[in-house]
């Protein structure tokens, strides 16, 4: 190839980078458009849902993924959730940030009625700070690395919520000696409960509610938008007809390996041959 050709290709790559940037910003614009358009429909839906008894209790107990995040003892309090609403930030710079509001009913002598809003912010972050939930090895040392790849992640703030009385022993505010083995253990249990999630910030990997960001995303991108679908699914006459298949590793046929692992692809293809 001639130098001239090479120069043109070189410029083309730069143009492509600009073009990608343009596409990304259109994606945000589309997201904004959607949020604004959906707002009134969601508001209307919130009002309607309020009239249906136990709506959220049914949705939340129906959803297996949700149950995976919390402790079994939390269900008592999950059932006390009367209402959930999600508000999505629609300013272009804030796209991806949102807040979730929970209305808890009172449980006598245990939990007070309360309305709690937890806010989530999408922030850009370098690769070295990405190691959330990686366990103990707390590599928070500041590395002066170039921003090799900036990535986005959710963070939040500690959010005041009154814990149930029954949780006194694991309520982090009430544990006096957090250094004793007993204290440590209780503290950790508390942090893993649904109430522990309200303290999640995303800034202390390994020390907070596990996968706090995924639970937030589950609520904002799945449970809230599709709550009516989950509600109706829970109402099906035949409880055994749900679409949650058992995990494939138990199927005996040894093809499972090849079929599961294309996690690099953005849009996962779903072909059911069976």
């Amino acid at each position, binding site marked *: 190839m001639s130098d001239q050709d090479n120069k043109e290709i070189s410029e083309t790559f730069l143009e492509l980078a600009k073009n990608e940037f343009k596409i990304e910003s259109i994606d945000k614009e589309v997201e904004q458009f959607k949020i604004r358009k959906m707002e009134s429909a969601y508001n209307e839906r919130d009002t309607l849902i309020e009239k249906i008894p136990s709506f959220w209790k049914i949705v939340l107990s129906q959803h297996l993924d949700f149950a995976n995040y919390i402790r079994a003892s939390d269900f008592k309090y999950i059932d006390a959730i009367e209402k959930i609403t999600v508000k999505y930030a629609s300013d272009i710079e804030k796209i991806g940030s949102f807040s979730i509001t929970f209305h808890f009913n009172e449980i006598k002598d245990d939990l007070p009625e309360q309305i709690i809003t937890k806010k989530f912010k999408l922030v850009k972050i370098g690769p070295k700070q990405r190691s959330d939930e990686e366990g103990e090895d707390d590599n928070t040392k500041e590395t002066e690395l170039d921003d*090799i790849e900036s990535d986005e992640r959710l963070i939040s703030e500690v959010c005041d919520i009154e814990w149930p009385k029954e949780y006194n022993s694991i309520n982090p505010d009430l544990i006096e000696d957090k250094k004793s083995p007993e204290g440590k253990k209780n503290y950790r249990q508390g942090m893993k409960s649904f109430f522990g999630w309200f303290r999640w910030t995303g800034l202390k990997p390994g020390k907070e509610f596990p996968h706090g960001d995924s639970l937030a995303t589950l609520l904002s991108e799945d449970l809230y938008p599709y709550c009516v679908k989950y509600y109706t699914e829970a109402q099906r006459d035949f409880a055994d007809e749900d679409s949650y298949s058992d995990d494939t590793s138990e199927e*005996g046929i040894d093809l499972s390996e090849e079929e599961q692992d294309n996690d690099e692809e953005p849009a996962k293809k779903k072909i059911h041959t069976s």
Partner: protein
Amino acid sequence: MVGNLEKILQGYLPQDHKFEILHLQNTPTQVRPIVTLPKKNCHTKSQDVTIKTPHFFALANNSKFIYGIEIHVYIILKNNNNNNNDTVNEKNPSYDDAERLIFISKADTNGYSDIKFSAKQITKGIIHYLFSIDPNHYLKQVVPLERKYEQSFSKIFITKETSLENALQILSNRSHQKEKSQAVRKKMLQSHQHYLSFKLANKIRTKLCLFTRPADQYLFAESSKNPNKHTLSGMGLLKWWLSIIDDLLCEDFTKDSEGKLRIPGEESIIVKRCFKPNNFSNWTVGDIFGGKPNSLAIFSVPLFSDDPKSRFLHELVEEARVMKTNLETFWMELQERQEFKLSETVSVIGISGYTAISTAVIPTEFDTIITDSKKQYRYIKNYITGEEYNAEEGALESYVNIVDYLRYKYNRSLTSIVGTMPKNLKVKEPVNTPQITTLQPRKKIKI
């Protein structure tokens, strides 16, 4: 020219019959230790290096794949010098001991062979071939567990950490680079490849293990629908494998090597009865993983891919019982796992010892496709394992695809082997003429 693979395997295939074989191997890759370490030991023992290399063999005859086996070879480099606080050598630790662990993942036939061949013999032949490979073959170029990207790196090389925009920037820079600087970059890349390499001084211990459990099919999906495919009962499968392993112990190993058999849920007396037909003298009840009945299973039982033992360990973690389950309980409960056919025998067979044969074979481009990524390895293998074998068409289709793919992408063909094993062979009637039903997808893709 006759390659090693051909030379070794021809003796296990029926005389004068022509076969073709695919030998696929991925580049050796460093992995995490396969036996979980207690947390306290994590740091002291983390100097051990485990290197995994998957092999896949598929045998074809008459333009159809008829047999396949997948085997993972692990080389574990150990540092037994107790100079744990010696950090001087951290960058280049010496390994005074090593071990080769061969895990037989799955083997299968599909029943579409037009001639009679012994799946037992070819299985034996392939394992024998692996025993004959020089362990140093796996140590020349090892993909490290993690690459540490340096700052200077990010402007020159495109890695999995490079953002789209940066990658385009790099490509832009590259395309107007002079040839000279292109060459400089290539050289730099080589030095940054971050391949590890090791050299073994001595002959190393070889271990082998496999888990037998009856199933309709292991590699060839839907092949149990072929009436000509034989499937074995749990006990049948155990005996089938046991006789292979016994032969290998006799032929390839020193006398003081050990054969081990464990049948979860079965009394020792019953297990011992299985040894009767064996020829090797040193068979005992148990396994090669070590540990006492009352020690925790998690610290003895290795984690292999797609292995019921590993799945069970993961399940114990989920049930929060892993720190309470000792080996005795582990084996007892394992047998009751749902994934096994009701009341069928499952077993764990193992070898531990030193090979008595020459180990000088180095797989070469001549008879082995060595892929440079797991992705590519899987992709090629998937031409065979992704097909459906309820009709003969699957065996034909996988063959055509493999042959076309190797020719187009590697400019290679399958290795031909003419059998030399004398035997009175009855040629079977052709199994079945192509039965055309409806179109089947080539690949089963699931979420």
